[in-house]
């Protein structure tokens, strides 16, 4: 499903990491969305191997081809470097940065946006506070290109809030509103802002809390969430993920622990039907995409914010061998 620019409407509310934003932007799309992609390509945060960035930037108009060559999992220093350029924006931005092209949402956010930043910051998975700054990065860059153009029409599948019905109140498309949907924040399954008293649900003070991260799999219809604290090793987690997502692959599937020189294992999920391999990647707290298995387990659980099972054809940028990748790290 293509959701090229919708995340920008979320304005700091989206859990989608910037790298995924750019991934989505490159998904093939028709007409107007494609031209919007043009606007963004030149300025968006892109991830690529050293040396591969320039060609990408130049061929930024080729929206259709992007997907297959879209690299991920850039060596860390390069990505951080790219990001540092936007650090001013990140620091300067707040959760309340408003998309001026969409006044209704701005009003709504200004009213209700306050609740976003402070709470649940240490929450399970990616936090709104952090992604706020990430999304701001995207949007502040985008804004400089002319805000109005970037407001997307909704893709057919995506429900859009009708603002034109004489409402006095115009809730932003997909912007998060206080207390909506009406689900109690006590429910641990939600990534909701929990009242401070409920910190025991969240990755907590005493470490006895949970550490929920989202797990997505390319091609699967929905995301799952796992509590990293329930696993004590990569093997356990791999097995659990395999069980969880086994319904999406046909035929024999399994994570094969392939020990590398450093004794760390790399996982692969084989889908015989499609003949493609899956790799397990994660996004760390800096938003960088990494292959799972590179770092010691504890370090991984500390820094992992989101997991993604992606087709290895999409992960060309990821070094095939964990050991080699380690070399590129600081």
């Amino acid at each position, binding site marked *: 499903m293509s959701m090229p620019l919708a995340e920008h409407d979320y304005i700091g509310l989206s859990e989608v990491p910037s790298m995924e934003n750019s991934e989505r932007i490159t998904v093939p799309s028709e007409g107007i969305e494609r031209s919007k992609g043009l606007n963004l390509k030149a300025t968006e945060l892109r991830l690529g191997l050293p040396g591969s960035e320039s060609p990408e930037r130049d061929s930024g108009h080729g929206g259709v081809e992007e997907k297959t060559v879209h690299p991920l999992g850039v060596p860390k220093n390069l990505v951080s470097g790219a990001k540092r350029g936007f650090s001013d924006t990140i620091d300067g931005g707040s959760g309340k940065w408003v998309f001026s092209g969409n006044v209704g949402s701005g009003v709504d956010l200004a*009213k209700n946006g306050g609740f976003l930043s402070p709470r649940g910051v240490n929450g399970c998975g990616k936090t709104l506070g952090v992604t706020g700054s990430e999304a701001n990065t995207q949007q502040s860059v985008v804004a400089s290109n002319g805000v109005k153009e970037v407001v997307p029409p909704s893709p057919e599948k995506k429900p859009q*809030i009708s603002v034109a019905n004489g409402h006095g*109140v115009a809730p932003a498309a997909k912007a998060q509103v206080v207390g909506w*949907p009406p689900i109690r924040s006590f*429910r641990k*399954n939600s*990534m909701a802002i929990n009242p401070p008293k409920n910190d*025991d649900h969240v990755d907590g003070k005493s470490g006895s809390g949970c550490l929920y991260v989202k797990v997505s799999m390319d091609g699967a219809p929905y995301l799952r969430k796992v509590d990293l604290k329930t696993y004590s090793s990569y093997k356990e987690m791999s097995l659990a993920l395999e069980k969880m997502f086994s*319904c999406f692959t046909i035929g024999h599937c399994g994570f094969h622990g392939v020990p590398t020189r450093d004794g760390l294992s790399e996982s692969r999920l084989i889908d015989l039907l499609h003949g493609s391999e899956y790799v397990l990647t994660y996004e760390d707290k800096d938003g960088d995409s990494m292959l799972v298995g590179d770092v010691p387990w504890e370090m991984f659980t500390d820094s992992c914010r989101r997991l993604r099972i992606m087709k290895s054809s999409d992960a060309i940028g990821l070094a095939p061998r964990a050991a080699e990748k380690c070399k590129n790290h600081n």
Partner: protein
Amino acid sequence: MDSISKKTKDSPNSTDSPESTHPSSFPDEVLEGVLSLLSFNKDRSSVSLVCKDWYNAERWTRTKVFIGNCYSVSPEIVARRFPKIRSIILKGKPRFSDFNLVPENWGADIQSWLVVFARVYPFLEELRLKRMTVSDESLEFLAASFPGFKALSLSSCDGFSTDGLKAIATHCKNLIELDIQDNGMDDFGGGWLSCFPENFASLEVLNFASLNSEVNFDALERLVTRCKSLKVLRVNKGITLEQLQRLLMRAPQLMELGTGSFQQDLTPRQCAELESAFSNCKNLHTVSGLWEANSLNLPILYPACASLVFLNLIDATLQSGELAKLLAHCPNLRRLWVQDTVEDKGLEAVGSCCPLLEELRVFPADPFDPDILHGVTESGFVAVSRGCRRLRYVLYFCRQMTNAAVATIVQNCPDFTHFRLCIINPGQPDHLTNEPMDEAFGAVVKTCTKLQRLSVSGLLTDLTFEYIGKYAKNLETLSVAFAGSSDRGMQCVLGGCSKLRKLEIRDCPFGNAALLSGLEKYESMRSLWMSACNVTMNGCRLLAREMPWLNVEVMKDEESDDSHADKVYVYRSVAGPRRDAPPFVMTL
């Protein structure tokens, strides 16, 4: 009245009673004896209106009191009227406080009530609180003040911690029920459970499923062993399957079970033992918990499934196949709560496996995550309605819906009493026709004549509310969000729904004209909530001035301008304006 005087004349005891056709000649003892048999408070309220003698007889025989809004009456008034109360149900904050719309420290503190109760009802046995603020000190006070205390139920409350539970466990020697649900409480550890004395054996209901900290399993096992009357046990996810098996062996008489974690890797022998334990529980009719249940472990439930009446799967993230397999064993299910990870396919299984289903609640697994676009749709709901014709209570969170689907659903199931539909995207139209969802709710109110509770969502114009006002004659509770086009909508509801008791509205374009159109109606209602609407301070002041028996309270948001009334809470009260209102609550 006439029939009563007739009775007096014709009764064999009429010669014993004073010569009179007046109803009050009926001897008090007899009247009280009869009235003490009345259990429903609605009946009691009717009885109390007959005449003064009946009013008195009723108040002397009432043992249970239900107070739906703690500020509608004061503890002193309750104490004066009902001298013999043993069981109290108290509800505090407006329901939207569950969704963070009410600031902290709003009120509804139980302490002032407890102080009065301790003086007047030393034999108090039961206290059931919802959306009240309860401190640890209050719990300690409770434990110390009522020697015969038997049942404590705390739901959606806040302000206490496991320390308060320690006091209850330690001092309430006659405790039968401890039910802790969904509270904003601090969890400092599971040590409270170990505070039950070793000779304490009266517990019948224990629910600590919402507490995260692990309890001492040995203490729990011993407790379960000696409480031979234990009927309801809901443990938290710290209890493993292995431990659950031991608990079940100790308590085969259980009727309601909330399991702990269902995730453990089991050996075949452990599986067999668990299956055996479940089949031993002949009275088990309700199961919940099932954290992280997977398809490997669910089958151990099967021996108990045939007699299951209520299955609560909201903590088990099941997929459609897993649910289908499970439900194939549950033909007698009346109530089912699931997460929308089961998707439409799972709901099809509901429709085909559970023909006796009366209640379905589908919760979104990731309600706040804009990435997630899947869950259940209109097809799942329709599928359920086809198979489960007795459906009367539905709570359905979905990301798309159509008018046609809802029309079909209520045609299949015209007996709805509670219809709560939440289309997650505010103001979303029919996803096929792009029209408002007016006709959907029109169909609901036209077809479901017994409808008591309705929650609307999606893109709605005033037409929805015209329908509601015109057809929903039994409606008591209405929840509205991001809907309507003008004041007319709310006016239609206030004018048409004669039995309306609770109206909660947020983010709708209803203003002063709408608010004031209900001037005389609010006294017959429990409460009105309006937030983020177009009501002004002047409108509220006018309402307050015209209706002295109403409390009109306004809470303002930080950035709003002076004239706007951001959050308005209106309720009838015989206790006058609140004396404990925090600074951010303005009583007009």
